Structures are given as C-alpha cells and as structure tokens.
C-alpha cells in the first residue's frame, strides 16, 4: 500500500507534460479548432507509448495511461487519443492507425462520433461484444457543429455491423477502461481550468490590487482545487484497481472516479469563466475550451447521473447481501 506515483510513473508524467506543452501549446489553441491532430504531435504521443499501454495480456498500464492522458487533457490535446489508447486491447496493430469509437448502447440518437473524419477505424461497443470496422463504412454521416471546437464530431443515424473483436466480458472491460481514461482527461481539464483562473487572478488588478487577494475570488479558486484533488485521487485509485483487482471493486471505483471527474471538469470550467469575468465570456480566452471539452468528456462512457446510480446500486447490493452482524 503506497498511494504515490512510483519513480517510473513520475518520469512518464514529466515526459507527458513536456510533450503536451510542446505539441499542444495553449497559446495557439485557436489554430487547432476543427482540425485533425497534427502528424508530428500524433507521432510524439505514439512514441511516448500511450497507445500500447493497455495491450491485452500485459499487466498494468491503466495508471500509466491515466497519468499521460491527464497531462494531455490539461493542454486540451487534439485527436482520437482515448479510443486509440483503448483499441490496443483488441489487437497490437493500434497506434499505426487512428481509432475512434461509439457506444451502441447509448439511448440517445443520432450517434455522435468524436474525431470521425480523421480516424481510420471505428470500434463499436455493444452490450454483448465489441466490433471493429473502417470508418468509411459509416453510411450517410454528416459533420456536426461541435460544442467543443477542439473535438470535431461525425453524426450518424445507424451503425454498421463490423468484425467481432471482443465478447461481452471484453465489452465490460472496455467500458471500464474508457471511463477511467475519460476521467483522467477530465482531471487534466479541471486542473487546466484552475491553472488558467489562478494565473489570471494573480495578474488582473481591480481597486488597485490583484483580484486574487479578494476572499470571494479565493473561495472560488479553493473550491476548484478541492474538486480536482478529489477527482484525481478517485481516478488514480480506479486505475490502480483496474490494474490489480485485489485492490478493490473496480466497477464502483470507476463510477466514483468518472462521476467526480465530470463534476470537477464542468464546475471548474464554469468557475474559470467566472473568475475571468467579462474576458472569460469571450472566445479569445481559454475557459470556454475547458468547459466545452468537459461536457464532451462527461458524456463519454456514462454521465455523472449514470455513474451515481451505479454507485448507489452497488451500495444497495452490498447491504442487502451482507450477512447480519
């Protein structure tokens, strides 16, 4: 029991941080709107090893993927990072191609597929299994007008049948891993929103002093910090349990992490808009990107409500099956 990143995990985090700062510079984020991820950036992420961390048959990897995606999330990285990271669970060729995916169980129509236009391959997650097909098998797709300008989306009414690559157990495992990776990105996004708001609060002056000296602003920032630290703790724990099932109940830990990370991302994005005031309401500043990305990620692999109900169902199950003490 030692809830700290080990030396290798810290080194990986630092490398991911440097990579994200170089290839996904927030100062020029507007230039990435609506665009596919740059080839050099994609290659750098692949070279870091993200797309092979979750390889089938290999032990561990979820904590490492979490650490990397957190750093990429903080810089609002582009491209189908999450699904390509997951795709290696179904074959070693991943990373060479860009993979996106869709949850066929989602009750909402039409289906919304992130980064569809730039992806080569599509994973279809169904209740009873996982299928793979080329993206161009999608019939009559249209490009959506995405809420998040950094996440282009494709909209389709029907999903093609693909080649089966996994059964029901694989689908469950994919769903868990996907929720953990989305939570990891959300933790990064929530941290990025906090960093943006804190930097502005130190620099912006009103009444002759930085606005960060006002308690009303301090308290907004403190709440942002509490949310991101809670979400980070829950997400690292879920990843560690995914890697080693002896450490706890992976489904509940994953639901708790996804739920809290979604709340942290959306609430921190919202708070960053508020701390930056009128400037926070403009397209030119960063807060709206964090907020919009958070909504995309919150909707991926189960919303907060879905996971809250899963946690209370697990609690009920635990209590009704517990032996009387």
């Amino acid at each position: 029991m030692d809830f700290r990143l080990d030396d290798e995990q810290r080194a990986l985090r630092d490398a991911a941080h440097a990579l994200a700062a170089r290839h996904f510079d927030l100062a020029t984020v507007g230039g990435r709107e609506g665009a596919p991820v740059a080839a050099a950036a994609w290659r750098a992420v692949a070279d870091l090893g993200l797309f092979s961390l979750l390889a089938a048959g290999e032990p561990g990897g979820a904590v490492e993927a979490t650490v990397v995606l957190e750093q990429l999330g903080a810089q609002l990285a582009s491209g189908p990072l999450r699904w390509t990271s997951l795709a290696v669970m179904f074959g070693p060729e991943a990373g060479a191609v860009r993979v996106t995916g869709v949850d066929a169980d989602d009750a909402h129509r039409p289906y919304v597929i992130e980064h569809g236009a730039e992806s080569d391959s599509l994973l279809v997650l169904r209740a009873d299994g996982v299928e793979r097909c080329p993206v161009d098998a999608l019939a009559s797709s249209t490009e959506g007008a995405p809420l998040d300008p950094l996440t282009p989306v494709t909209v389709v009414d029907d999903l093609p049948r693909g080649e089966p690559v996994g059964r029901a157990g694989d689908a469950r495992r994919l769903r868990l891993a996907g929720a953990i990776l989305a939570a990891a990105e959300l933790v990064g996004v929530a941290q990025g929103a906090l960093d943006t708001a804190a930097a502005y609060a130190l620099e912006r002056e009103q009444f002759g002093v930085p606005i960060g000296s006002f308690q009303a602003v301090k308290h907004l920032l403190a709440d942002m910090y509490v949310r991101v630290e809670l979400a980070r703790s829950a997400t690292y724990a879920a990843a560690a349990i995914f890697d080693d099932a002896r450490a706890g109940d992976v489904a509940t830990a994953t639901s708790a992490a996804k739920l809290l990370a979604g709340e942290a991302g959306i609430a921190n994005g919202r708070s960053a808009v508020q701390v930056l005031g009128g400037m926070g309401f403009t397209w030119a500043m960063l807060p709206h990107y964090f907020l919009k990305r958070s909504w995309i990620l919150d909707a991926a692999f189960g919303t907060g409500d879905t996971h809250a109900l899963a946690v209370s169902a697990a609690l009920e199950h635990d209590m009704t099956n517990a032996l009387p003490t």
Partner: protein
Amino acid sequence: VNLTYSDADERFRAALRAWLEAEVPRHGAPPPAGDWPARRAYDTDWQRKLHDAGYAGLHWPAAYGGRGLPVSQQLVYLEEYARANAPYISVNFVGMMHAGPTLVAEGTDEQRAFHLPRILRGESVWCQGFSEPSAGSDLASLRTRAVRRGDEYVVTGEKIWSTRAHVADYCELLVRTDRDAPKHRGITWLILDMHQRGVEVRPMKTIDGEHHFCEVFLDEARVPVSNRVGEENDGWRVTNVTLRFERGTAFAQHIITLRSQIRALVAVAMSTAGRDGGRAWNDVALRLHVGRLQAGVDALWRMTQRGIAEAERSGVPPASGSAVKLRYSELAQEIADLTLRTIGRPALAGAGEVAVCAARDYLWSLQYTIAAGTSQIQRNLVAERVLGMPRG
C-alpha cells in the same frame, strides 16, 4: 501507485478484526448522552484495552510508547475500526491526536516520560485551551496572560470551546507571555493541570441541547515552568505543529466513519415510506444523491490515503489537508441533512431512536464547518498557501 496490502498487513488486519469482533460487543453500548463522567470511564477503559492489546498509538514512534507501524497498517486499523463500529475516540481525542503528538515533537524528555504513557493507557484526559471569546479565527490575538513568578507561570484569562474540559485532567494551553511583541511572537504553550484552584470549568449548552464544549476561567492558575513546551514566546510555532496535525491525518477516522453513516441512511430509506407511498429508496432522486455522496466519501478516503503516503515520505502533513477538511465537513452535513429529510416529520418529533439520533447528528454536524478552522478560513488557506494568492 500500489493499493494492495502486503501479507504482513493482511495478517495485522486478521488479528485486529478478530480482536475487535470479540472486544467491541464486550465493551457494550456507550452511556446516555450527557453523562460525562460515565462517558469518560467508558472511553478511557476502551483506550486501556486498546493499549493492552497493542493497538494504542500506532502512529506514534516506538521510542515514545507507540507502535511506530508502517502507514499501510495505520490505514488498515482505521478501516477495521470503522467496520467494527468500535467506540469513537471521544475524550481521548486531544491527548492522542493533538497533545501527545505535540509532546513527541516538541516536549522535553521529562514531559514525554510523564505524559505519553498516561495518554496511551487512558489514564489522563486532555482538553484544548486555544480559542478565546475574542480570539477565534484570529487565534494569535489571544489575551490570556501568563506572568512568570519564580518557577511558576501565573495564568489569568478565559478560554472557550474547550471540548470535554469538564472531564479533563490536563489542558494544552496557549497564553500570552509578551504583550509588547508582535502577536505571533508573544505566545507560549503550557501544560495546565486542570485539578487546581483558579481553574473553573463551565459547560456550555449548545444547539443540540448537549454540553460537549466548555468555557474555562483561569484566575491565577499555576503552571510550573517545567510544564512549558518549547521556548517562552515560541508557542505559535509549537501550535502550528499541532494544527497541522489536525489538518493532516486527524480526520481520517471521521472520514471512514462517514461510510457507516451513509449505510445508516440507506437502511433508513429502505424501511421508510417515500413520497409515492412506496419505500423512500425507490425515489431516483434520493438514489442519485446517495450515489454522489458515496462517491465523494470514497474519493475523500483515497485522498486521505494519498496525503498520508505523501506525509510519510516528506515528514510534514500534506498541503491537501485543508481540502480534505473542507470536503469532509460538508459531506458530513449533507449526509445528516439527507437522513433527516428521509425520515421526515417523525425526525422533528423525536419519534423513535432512529429519529432522535438523526436529529442530534444533524445539529451536531453543523459544528464541522466551524471547529478546527471554519470553512471560510480553510478556503483562504488553500488559496493563499497552496495556490499562492496574495493575503488580502
């Protein structure tokens, strides 16, 4: 990140679980609320049992009578303790969690040799004499005076919010020894013997009708100079050793207890009628709320594990301590609030044991966001000390 326990940890868990399963029922139910002498006896007897079984002061260094166990086993202890629904630390809290660790860090050999074994064995009960009527959040403005006369300090003043002072033997007392120095530099940390003329304790009736807290009036109370901890006028630094402890690991037991409070809430919801005449638990809004609370409590426990692991390596409490305290206190209030709502009107009429407990827990929970640094002060601390905002 390694969240699995070693074989040695699991052996420790198995032995502890067996011991708790035998001893907790044998120790019986706590005395009725309000009977403080009986409560003291109940709590100190339990502390003695913990000590004799080798479960006292797990986090204290072995050189001072503790067990010096690895942090992993401290966590196992907290998990099993909550699982067994073992007695709350109560009157032993200040001794075990504040005064004892402060003496370990800053006391003289004589002070440690006298007090630490007594705390560990449940032979002495401590209270805290920090806050004053005009020194709350601004603790350093305290005015209780100590004047040196020969080998003694003569202490006069008024303390407030001293928890369980009516059954305490010793008080960790902050006094002003230099009125001319800047406020942080004229404070001294003393060990006050509560059993003497010049110390008058008056319990205060609080919002829940109970008497947990006291006023302590000091009229020329005597403290031998040998009972000073740290140097004269260096008490603020000594105090911060204690306060940081309070914000670091001291809430771990409270946090893990929230799990059982949520389970109690679910049990109530399963056996109480809801709005539609069915069980309250059928209400999806309630299940959403409980799911969020449970996720929050789980995450808070994980955050505590992270903080303790960091503290183990660095030797100082984690920066996240204020954040843990903030979230813990608000979650505790939300759970108490939701429980009261779920029971409904019977909770307002004191109808039945569960209803009485729920009402009392709700009212008691209101102190969580006030005691040990209000939530407003904690937010200032996070913003200034962690995020680097300027002091206003």
